[in-house]
């Protein structure tokens, strides 16, 4: 079986490529590496991006199985379990299975881990979810104990039948691991923090007898609409009726800013990858042009030559892209795979690595397409007017440069794109990410013009300097302008992405730090359950507040309450402060409304402060009202102020604890704010409070400063992936530029040798090579930095306007400087070595063409 394509045997295509590979192994390896690095960046970013949502999707669907609807409580306190039984008897309902979910901490001999404790009933098996279908037997195994995912069990050092402690609702309960759950039993739950037990056991642990937080509903075939209507009537406005996988919709909203940032990086990585591939392929152009000439001389027609070139590019693209995908997979598993802590607290996000087929195909497609496009230059030799070009025209002629018209056209396009982006983003801030991708394109378009102007200016400048190697450097740059422009483009894109996203990230961190400080400085000491970063896990006070109030040095103890509340596609952060709290709102987070008036209204009750995104979605402004879906039904509250999202992407609602207690039907605190008497230090006060907490091992006392540190660490952890992607992009770009520059330099050894014969010594040549590299990097870095700062300003504005994040633009000169220095230093240090070796080339090499 050896078919012919256009008269060429397939085996011959492999032979041709084999010959090429043997003759130009180093060049093919370099080209392949460039493509692989680009594909790895694209794949790594995309895979990291899809993993958070993918793991949550597997987990949610693993639990909900074939359920279409759910009744879900509006607070962690849940609702009466009997409602689940009644729901099961509604017309059209085939199955109804209750769940009880609560955040907790599991403590074993090796340490502690935050978990989500889920109480289930054996009826969940009827839904056939991947995580529960094997629990038929498991329900027996779970009897009287916990099913702990294998990773959690390993982390805390427990095995089946061993005792553990569960900290929940402020108390510690001794329990026993009944079974360690692995993938074969519970699928993706094994990679999550979901610890399961039978419902009565979970209720006992949580002191929530007869309560559930969720009922999964499966309708009989054809009865879906009827069941939805029945459930809404049944819920009577006090319980939410949502699709079974509603968590995913809420997660998508919460992780949108993170996803958008990584999408921008993915788009930049695609461009960087393409440029790396293009540059790598440009290095092979002279050889491939010779191949074209040889094939034509041997009587191959243009279609056959095209077939040979296309086949070679396809094989190179495929092999390199597969290598890139493997590398990208490793990157996404190691560097990029950090699930932000704030998401794991609010959503069932697992740690599993999820890669979709479309991600693989996209990365593969990008790699192969980039290789095919980058392989095009020799194809121009197939035009009838240039039939002999491959033989007659030497490399370094005008064919390698950008024409003046092209440069002007591209420069004009770059400026036009910048103007369009500016207009677009000013009018529609939500299009900032699209604008960011377009700005990256503008960066590339501007490079040839900046390159031409710089080369001309340097040439002028060098005319009057004695013995300047700048003359040699500029001439070499002009001789390989396409390659130099592609390399400057890689540097520019990496710097652009890093400065734009890094700058916005920096603004965001400053804003978040400020809001955190203001938010937590209302008390000297905070008492909360462990790992409770949103202060939304409640505990029974049971006289704890009174005990602390009696402790020496304590002047006041206030009850703080908080929760998560699902409204539409947003999981809002509800924060309730007592009316006597020194500060009801964080002044720096106020966007609209008068601080004094808003504070007075919040203290008075019947008012709330809401985040800008939520307000915009419901067309609300200060003085308006909104019917908030609370556990006691819809309650109309006035809007006292519009705030930022205080760091939680879906937004926040702030009200006073009287309103909260009334509408959420609980007096349980989620924190106690402790004020100390004058002269008592925070640390001494914390120690006093800790002593008063004796007997409540599930509660911890922290000074405001300790709690601020914890928040800031979590914030930074949440943004860690972005920083790592940015750094990796920079390092990869710097190394890729360095290797491509090194290859370019190495390829020119014969010309360097000829310069030596003309009397240039090796220091002069080395200087010229370093200058050349510095100019390429300088152009790329400068254009990238300018556009990056502009992108940063637009991104910060969008963060504030569209997501309501507390981000204030600041230039961040130091960060820009560090970024530029990092890329320039890595590239120049790497280039210095091959440059040094190349400058030592024997003059005799000029005779060995």
């Amino acid at each position, binding site marked *: 079986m050896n078919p012919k394509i256009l008269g060429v045997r397939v085996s011959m295509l492999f032979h041709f490529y084999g010959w090429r590979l043997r003759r130009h192994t180093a060049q093919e390896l370099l080209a392949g590496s460039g493509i692989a690095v680009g594909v790895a960046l694209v794949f790594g970013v995309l895979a990291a991006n899809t993993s958070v949502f993918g793991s949550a999707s597997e987990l949610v669907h693993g639990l909900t199985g074939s359920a279409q609807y759910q009744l879900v409580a509006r607070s962690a306190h849940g609702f009466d379990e009997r409602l689940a039984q009644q729901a099961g008897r509604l017309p059209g309902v085939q199955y109804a299975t209750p769940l009880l979910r609560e955040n907790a901490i599991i403590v074993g001999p090796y340490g502690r881990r935050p978990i989500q404790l889920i109480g289930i009933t054996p009826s969940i098996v009827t839904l056939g979810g991947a995580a529960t279908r094997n629990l038929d037997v498991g329900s027996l195994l779970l009897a009287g104990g916990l099913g702990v995912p294998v990773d959690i069990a390993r982390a805390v050092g427990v095995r089946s039948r061993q005792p553990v402690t569960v900290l929940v609702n402020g108390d510690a309960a001794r329990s026993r691991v009944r079974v360690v759950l692995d993938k074969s039993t519970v699928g993706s739950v094994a990679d999550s923090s979901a610890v399961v037990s039978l419902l009565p056991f979970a209720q006992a642990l949580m002191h929530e007898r007869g309560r559930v937080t969720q009922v999964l509903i499966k309708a009989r075939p054809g009865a879906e609409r009827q069941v939805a209507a029945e459930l809404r009537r049944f819920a009577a406005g006090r319980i939410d009726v949502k699709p079974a996988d509603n968590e995913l919709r809420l997660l998508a909203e919460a992780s949108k800013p993170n996803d958008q940032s990584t999408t921008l990086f993915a788009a930049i990585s695609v461009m960087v990858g393409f440029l790396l591939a293009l540059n790598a392929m440009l290095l092979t152009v002279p050889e491939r042009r010779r191949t074209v000439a040889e094939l034509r001389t041997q009587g191959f027609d243009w279609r056959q030559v095209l077939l040979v070139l296309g086949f070679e590019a396809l094989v190179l693209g495929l092999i390199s892209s597969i290598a890139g995908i493997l590398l990208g997979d490793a990157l996404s598993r190691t560097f990029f795979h950090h699930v932000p802590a704030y998401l794991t607290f609010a959503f069932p996000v697992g740690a599993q690595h999820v890669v979709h087929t479309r991600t693989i195909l996209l990365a593969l497609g990008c790699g192969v397409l980039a290789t095919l496009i980058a392989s095009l230059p020799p194809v121009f030799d197939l035009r009838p007017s240039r039939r002999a070009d491959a033989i007659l*025209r*030497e*490399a*370094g*002629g*005008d*064919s*390698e*440069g950008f024409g003046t018209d092209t440069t002007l056209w591209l420069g004009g396009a770059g400026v036009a794109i910048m103007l369009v982006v500016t207009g677009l983003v000013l009018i529609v801030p939500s299009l900032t990410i699209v604008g960011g991708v377009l700005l990256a394109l503008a960066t590339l378009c501007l490079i040839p013009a900046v390159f031409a102007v710089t080369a001309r200016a340097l*040439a002028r400048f*060098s*005319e*009057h*300097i*004695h*013995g*300047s190697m700048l*003359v*040699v450097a*500029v*001439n*070499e*740059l*002009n*001789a*390989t*302008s396409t390659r130099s422009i592609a390399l400057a483009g890689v540097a520019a894109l990496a710097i652009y992405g890093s400065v734009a996203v890094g700058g916005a990230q920096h603004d965001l961190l400053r804003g978040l730090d400020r809001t955190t400080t203001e938010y937590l400085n209302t008390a000297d000491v905070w008492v909360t359950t462990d790992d409770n970063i949103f202060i939304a896990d409640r505990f029974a006070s049971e006289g704890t507040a009174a005990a602390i109030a009696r402790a020496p040095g304590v002047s006041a103890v206030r009850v703080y309450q908080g929760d998560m509340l699902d409204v539409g596609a947003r999981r809002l952060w509800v924060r309730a402060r007592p009316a006597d709290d020194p500060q009801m709102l964080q002044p720096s987070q106020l966007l609209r409304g008068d601080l004094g008036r808003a504070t007075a209204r919040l203290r008075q009750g019947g008012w709330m402060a809401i985040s800008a995104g939520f307000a915009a979605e419901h067309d609300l402004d200060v003085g308006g009202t909104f019917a908030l879906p609370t556990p006691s039904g819809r309650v109309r509250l006035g809007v006292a102020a519009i705030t930022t999202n205080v760091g939680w992407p879906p937004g926040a609602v702030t009200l006073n604890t009287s309103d909260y207690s009334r509408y959420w039907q609980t007096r349980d605190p989620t924190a106690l704010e402790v004020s100390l008497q004058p002269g008592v230090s925070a640390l001494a006060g914390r120690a006093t409070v800790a002593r008063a907490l004796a007997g409540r091992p599930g509660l911890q006392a922290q000074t405001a400063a300790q709690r601020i540190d914890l928040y800031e660490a979590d914030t930074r952890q949440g943004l860690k992936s972005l920083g790592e992607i940015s750094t990796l992009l920079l390092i990869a770009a710097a190394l890729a530029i360095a290797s491509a520059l090194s290859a370019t330099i190495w390829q020119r050894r*014969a*010309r360097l040798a*000829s*310069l*030596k*014969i*003309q*009397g*240039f*010594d*090796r220091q*002069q040549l080395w200087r010229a090579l370093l200058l050349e590299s510095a100019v390429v990097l300088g152009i790329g870095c400068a254009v990238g930095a300018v556009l990056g700062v502009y992108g940063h300003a637009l991104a910060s504005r969008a963060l504030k306007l569209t997501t309501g994040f507390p981000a204030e633009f600041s230039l961040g000169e130091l960060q820009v400087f560090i970024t530029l220095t990092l890329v320039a230093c890595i590239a120049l240090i790497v280039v210095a070595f091959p440059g040094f070796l190349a400058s030592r080339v*024997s*003059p*005799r090499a*000029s*005779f060995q*063409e």
Partner: protein
Amino acid sequence: MSSLELLDVVKHYAGGGEVVRAVDGVSLTVAAGEFVALYGPSGSGKTTLLLMAAGLMAPDSGSVLFDGRDVARLAERESAMFRRNEVGFVFQGFHLMGGASALDNAAIKLVGDGATLAEARRLARPWLERVGLSERADHKPGRLSIGERQRVAIARALVNEPKLLLADEPTGNLDSRRGQQILTLIRELCSERGIPALLVTHDPQAVAFVDRVLTLQDGRLDDEPRAELRAVSP
């Protein structure tokens, strides 16, 4: 006036378990203003001899004297200065810088010697005129014909007013008409400026333009000119 002298020069290469005697006891002199062709087939040792004359390779034994100095034994920096200040070199492959104009290519050598580009251009322009390319001074190599590129290379070789001109197959890439023009030019420059010129070639037509032809065969000079040269010998 300077002359080039090679005295009993020997150069061996070791490779594949064999020792190849690339140059085997060659002695020759190129007097001031004399244009000498070193003729021989591929592998006869011509380029090795040229490299030794330029101080780029040291002989295993013997001496290469220019102006009384043994140029093959110079330190690297001195050797570079020797080539920069005293030698003009013309390559078969031109080795022009693709991004530089014809004028800048001709001038580049002077930049390496500490001149500004503006000064170097001023000094190079007459040489470009001398080789007939004043109209094409601003053109880059990609827009010059192959013959024109070689003329730029010759202008570059002469721009420092060398005391010795060495040429490695300068007509190897040219058609016979252009080749003759180049050789005529070298000959004129050589006698006009009174400098010794050594031409390495295997083009029999080239020998018609030189003062003397030396034939190299297996690393040794032949006493008798080869048959194909007799018809064209000067």
